[in-house]
Structure formats: structure tokens, C-alpha cells
């Protein structure tokens, strides 16, 4: 049995719609991961600090407001700065198609749109999380 995968789920920006963030946090926890939910209105600095402090393997960002092209580059830059290059970053929310490749270019590994089955996200994280964590199955 490997170490538990540690996930920080965060809601950056001003938006308060947290149904998705809370449901996925619970689903990941039920799938055996260690989940830390930051709560609402976190700045990129706060999110990266939480990832550092919690020794996170994964950061899951929930963004529905359209601010993703501002928030994600900032978070990726801060992760670089802190040497957290191997943290898996995934985004869920309302993301226009044209932005998905742009998010990929800056290092966001997974983008999940409304209606994505939770199991798909669980599987994606297990498959792509950094290797020091033994993946299940």
C-alpha cells in the first residue's frame, strides 16, 4: 500500500459557487486520498503556500468565473518559483475550448468541464500524480 495522495482543492478568485469543489473534495477523499480544502477566495499566493505547507502532490482548482487565464499562469509561475514543479495541477469548471490548449502549454495537466464523471478525475490523478507516491491498482 502506497502513501496517500495529498490533494489541495482550492477556489481562487471572487466566485463563491463551491458545489463542484466540495463534491470533488469528498469524492477524492472517498477514493482514499488526503484532501485539504482551502475554502473560498484564495489568492494564488495563498494556494501555493497551502500546497507547500501540506506537501501536496496535486492542486485542484475550481474556477467558474472566467478568470482562469489570469489565475492559472500566476499559480504556475509561483509553483516554479518555489520549486514545486512536480505538483500535478488540474482545473475544473467553466473553461472555453480555446483556453484548454493554452492551459496545457503553461503546465496545467488536466481540465475537467461540467458533467465530468468523478471517477474519471480520480483515475486521471492516480495515473498522472508524481511517482514518489505509489499509485493504486
Amino acid at each position: 500500500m502506497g502513501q496517500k495522495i495529498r490533494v489541495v482543492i482550492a477556489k481562487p478568485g471572487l466566485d463563491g459557487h463551491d458545489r463542484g469543489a466540495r463534491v470533488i473534495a469528498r469524492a477524492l477523499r472517498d477514493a482514499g486520498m488526503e484532501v485539504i480544502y482551502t475554502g473560498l477566495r484564495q489568492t494564488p499566493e495563498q494556494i501555493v503556500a497551502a500546497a507547500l505547507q501540506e506537501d501536496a502532490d496535486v492542486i485542484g482548482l475550481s474556477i467558474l468565473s472566467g478568470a482562469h487565464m489570469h489565475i492559472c499562469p500566476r499559480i504556475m509561475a509561483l509553483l516554479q518559483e518555489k520549486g514545486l514543479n512536480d505538483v500535478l495541477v488540474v482545473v475544473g469548471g467553466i473553461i472555453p475550448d480555446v483556453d484548454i490548449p493554452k492551459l496545457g502549454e503553461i503546465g496545467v495537466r488536466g481540465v475537467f468541464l461540467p458533467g465530468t464523471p468523478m471517477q474519471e478525475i480520480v483515475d486521471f490523478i492516480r495515473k498522472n500524480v508524481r511517482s514518489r507516491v505509489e499509485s493504486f491498482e
Partner: protein
Amino acid sequence: MKSATSAPEAAPASAPRGSLTTVSGRPIASVYTPADISSLDYERDLGDPGAFPYARGIHSGGYRDKLWTMRQFAGFGTPEETNARYKQLLAAGGTGLSVAFDLPTLMGRDPDHELSLGEVGKCGVNVTSLADMEALFDGIDLSAVTTSMTINSPAAMLLAMYLVVAEKQGVSWQTLSGTIQNDILKEFIAQKEYIYPPRPSMRLVTDVFAFCTQQVPKWNTISVSGYHIREAGATAAQELAFTLRDGIEYVQYGIDAGLRVDDFAPRISFFFNSHSDFFEEIAKYRAARRIWAHVMRDRFHAANPRSWQLRFHSQTAGVSLTAQQPYNNVVRTALQALAAVLGGTQSLHTNSLDEALALPTAETATLALRTQQVIAYETGVTALVDPLGGSYFVEKLTRDLEEEALTYFDAIDRMGGMVPAIERGYPQKEIAESAYRFQQAVEQRDRVIVGVNAFVEERQEAVGILYIDESVAQRQLARLEHVKATRDHDRVRSSLKRLQAAARAGENTMPVLLDAVRAYATIGEMCDALREVWGEYEETPVI
């Protein structure tokens, strides 16, 4: 394991297990009979349309006398862009305006605040000062339209801006008609766009009640909203219960603030979700009217029948829209809209097919409006009132939903009301449980969502979407700079000081807010002035 979005899955061969319960998880029998409604008394429990307890409707003539208002919620980018969309919707036959504000406005922040980064004009229009409100309604006669404004924590500030625009157009406040959402309780419960703690927030709400009762008598001072509660994951019964219990809290606070119930209760309106479970939604609206009539007459002793009559706006369920196969959303929305109409809605917003991806384009917003027009003019459902009244099933559902809501009322009353219930996280927890249960049912395919967990296809060609570019933020920052350079600073400063003094003294904040708006104080400045007095609310994050 194969991914559900990349491989077609077999369609369920027969009705899936989930179809034996409503979308809220309520078990449904295969047939209903007179035995299910044996205790129903027509006069006592239903009444003719227009008669107490209004289960069948608040107007005797229904849509024969007046169609519902087709009120499409819209707002994006700069005030100028949204103004153009309003003129287009009015020209296409829309009959009311409904303003969607962006997150900086909803949260009482100026565009130059650090948390506004990337949010300006994105999910609504940015309104920072009176200059923006003037541009938003430029060329639109406020005496000829009714306007609904979806704004909560800073509702009093935005209402003040609208009133000053009317003043400048020469439109009397006595004749001005519209609605301000002004429902802070559901922000704590569901949407989480709060600024101040619950109790001072309730102060602002009752300030609007008191001011409008005197000065803007035709204005709907609150739209008590279940929409967001449902979107956050509540069942139909929870939406019904928490929304109406919020309504009770507002009436009680109004009375405690010294208002006479019949002076302000007729201006309270409601806002419900219209979700996918067709009959359950229709029953929900009927139950809502019956519960509210009894609450107002029996609990608050209101004497004016208008205080007893629950009027509501409805919106189709945003949460039911899927990014997969987006054209399916047109069909979902049409059926949800039909449920709202059969339930007797006073006004309706239909969502656009692309809203799981972005804000709607002009074309998809027009199609959403056309959906309402087809229902109104082609289906024949407007010819009579409450066409499903008397159905064994619908009457039983109406009664069951009512009983479930009343059970929640008892629980919340025992906690001392909705404000204490929110402070201990009660409705929040109930909703989170329901949201998780629903998601599990979808995962296990107990509940089928077409195109998501059944009848799946390779991702289709993308629909054209509305993209808000970064020039919006720059233009709004430029206007803010211009406003700050040209206004009378002493007048702004003194009005903000008087606002703080009024807040501390427990005086009505509306008159000083109007002065601050006239001086072109910004939303961030007005909200910060009150943040200094009241502090900010922070929720403990729990999963």
C-alpha cells in the same frame, strides 16, 4: 478503465432505476388514485385561482389576462456592451430587463482591487460608480421598462445608483418599477457571495424595505431566492423549505425593525429554480403559494390579501446544462420552462445552450427567448389556469412537498430562526449532503444524464462562444480613473463618513448612500466604509 467521454456506452435498455424516484430522490408510484388525495378539500386546500390559499394561482384569469414577463438575465463586459444587448432583447420582444453583474460588483470591490484580477466584466457587467450605471441605461426610458437587478451584499448601493439614474432621467421614484434581489440569507446558505456577517447584512436588507416602502412604493424590495439553493445541490423540498423559511426571517426582521407587515409584505417576491423533474417542479410552485398564504395570514396576521399572495420569477436549471452535446440543453430548457409556466410563474428566464461553456452569445440568448415565445404562443397552455390541478399525482406531490417543508420549518424554528441556523451551518450541511448523493447517483448511473453517462458520443464540434477580452478591464479602469479625477473629493469623503455614522447609529443607510452615489463614490469605497464598521464574514471551510 475507459473514459466515459471517449467511448460510447450502451444505452439503458429499460427505464433506469432512477426514474422510479424524482430527481430529488422522492419515490414515485406507478399510478395515483383518489385514495392518494382523499383528505383534499377543494375550498380549504386549493381554492379557485385568485382565492386563498392560492394553490392554483394568484390571479383568476391566469395568462389569459397577462402573460408572464419574459425576463432574460444578461450582463457582460462594459456597461456599453450590455446596454447594446438590452436594446437587442427589447427589440426582439423581451418585456423586462434583468441585470447580471460581474463578481467585483457583487463582492463590492473596485476593478483595481487585487481580488478583481481577471474577473472584471467576466460573468456579468461591471458597475463601479454612477457613471457606469448611467452608461448601462443610456437611451432606455426607466419609466417604460421594469428592471430586475441580481445583487445582494451591495444591493442597497446598486439600488441607490439606479434611483439616481431615474432621478437624472426625470422619472419619479413613485412610478419606478422593478426588483432588487437583496437576499443575503441564500448567499450564506448557497451562493457564498457575502461581505458582512449575517446580522449587519440583515440591517441593510431592512433599510431597503423601509426606504422603498416610503419612497419607491412599486419597487419589489427583495426576491427571496431558492434558485441558488437548488443549484448548490438542494432537493426540491429543501429549495422550497429554505427559501420560504428565509422569507419568514425577512418578514420577522422587517417587523422587528418597526415596519407594519402589510406595508412591506406585498413587495416581497420569490425566485425559484425550474429543474428537470417536470411534475415535482409544478407541485413545488403550487405548494409554495399555499404555504406562503398560510404563513402570512396565520403566522404574521397580515390582513391585505396581497401580502398572502406569493409571486415568483423562475429560471431554468443552469446546473442541468451539460458541456457535452450542448444542443441537448435547448430541449432541457424548453421542458423546464414549460414546468414553470404550468406552475404559474410571473416571470421567466430561459438559459442558453452554451452556458456550461461560457456566457451566452447574442444568437443563443435569442433562441432562449424564442423558446419562451413558442410555449406562450404555440402550445395552448396559456388558455387556462393551473391545468394540472386535480391530478391525483400532482395534488399528492404538492401535499408531500408542503409537509416536508413544514418539517424543516419546525427544525429551523427550534434553532431560533434562519440566522442562527445558518450560523451553525445547518442548511449548508443539508444541501452538501444532497449534492453528494445526487453526484453518486449519476456516477452509479442510477440517474441518467443524456450525453453524459448514457448515449455518449465523441466530443462534438464546439459551439461558438462569447469571449470576454481583456480590454474590458482596461476600459473600466480608465473610466474609474476618469471618475476619480473629475469628482468633488470632499463631497465623497464626507458622504462616506456620514455613511459610517449612520451605520453605527442604527439609522437607515439609504439616504446617505444616495448622497454618496450622487458624489460618484465607488462601490468599493462604499462597501469598504461599511467593512470598517461591521467587519467581514468568513466561512469555515468544511467538506
